[in-house]
């Protein structure tokens, strides 16, 4: 439809189908807290760069919820998702430090 729709379609098309691979053994609460801490730390770093994403926060919340329900496999998977999102938002902030000029009207 136009250039605006291409990024939108590209983004929507990239859907994370988190593989529900059969776990060798169920993740434990300890695994969850480690994974969750890593995700939270990454998100805090994104916060320092003032570039957090709303989906990171949402994914962290769903991780916590899954853990609360005792479903630590899902909780660990969600924590890893959140960490990847946070890391990507960090990457975006650093990458944009110079890339923003690409679109500047001259």
């Amino acid at each position, binding site marked *: 439809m136009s250039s605006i729709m291409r990024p939108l379609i590209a983004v929507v098309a990239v859907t994370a189908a988190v593989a529900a691979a059969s776990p060798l053994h169920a993740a434990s609460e300890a695994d969850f807290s480690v994974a969750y801490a890593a995700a939270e730390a990454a998100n805090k770093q994104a916060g320092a760069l003032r570039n957090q994403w709303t989906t990171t926060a949402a994914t962290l919340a769903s991780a916590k919820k899954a853990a609360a329900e005792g479903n630590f496999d899902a909780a660990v998977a969600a924590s890893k998702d959140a960490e990847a*999102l946070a890391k990507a938002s960090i990457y975006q902030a650093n990458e944009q430090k110079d890339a923003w000029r690409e679109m500047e009207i001259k």
Partner: protein
Amino acid sequence: MNRPSETVDATRRMIVKGTAVLALIGFAGIRFGWSPAFAAANGKYPEDAFKQKSSEDAIKALYGKAAEASDKVKLDAPEIAENGAVVPIGVSTALADVTSISILVADNPNALAASYKIPAGTIPNVASRLKMAKTSNVIAVVEAGGKLYSATKEVKVTVGGCGG
């Protein structure tokens, strides 16, 4: 638990998840009983007509007869509504002895949106702003000389923005 060394590719990886669902206020199908308002001075409030789901039933409840399409009824409505919350609708007609004009939104939870009484000496031309739940046919009905005439137009309605 160590993780494979973070390569640039690893950090570039990102998950896109549609977790952030646009908080579109849902239109629940629940219908609440209308608390009966006392009839205003000029005739009873057509409670039953406003409770009907379909436009046909609403027209029958309001006028007791069906309407026939007529190009004498001019319905001014946008092709794409800028927003379902404020849809400007205008109805006018050259027909004589007009006594009532009503506007219905076929696919709203209740079809009848507004009904206007046009006493003698009042010009049959009304503009108002309605709410539409989704894309739907808008039907203008004019009662003239005891007969019912109608015009229909589809108005597209969808949410705006890029999804949040």
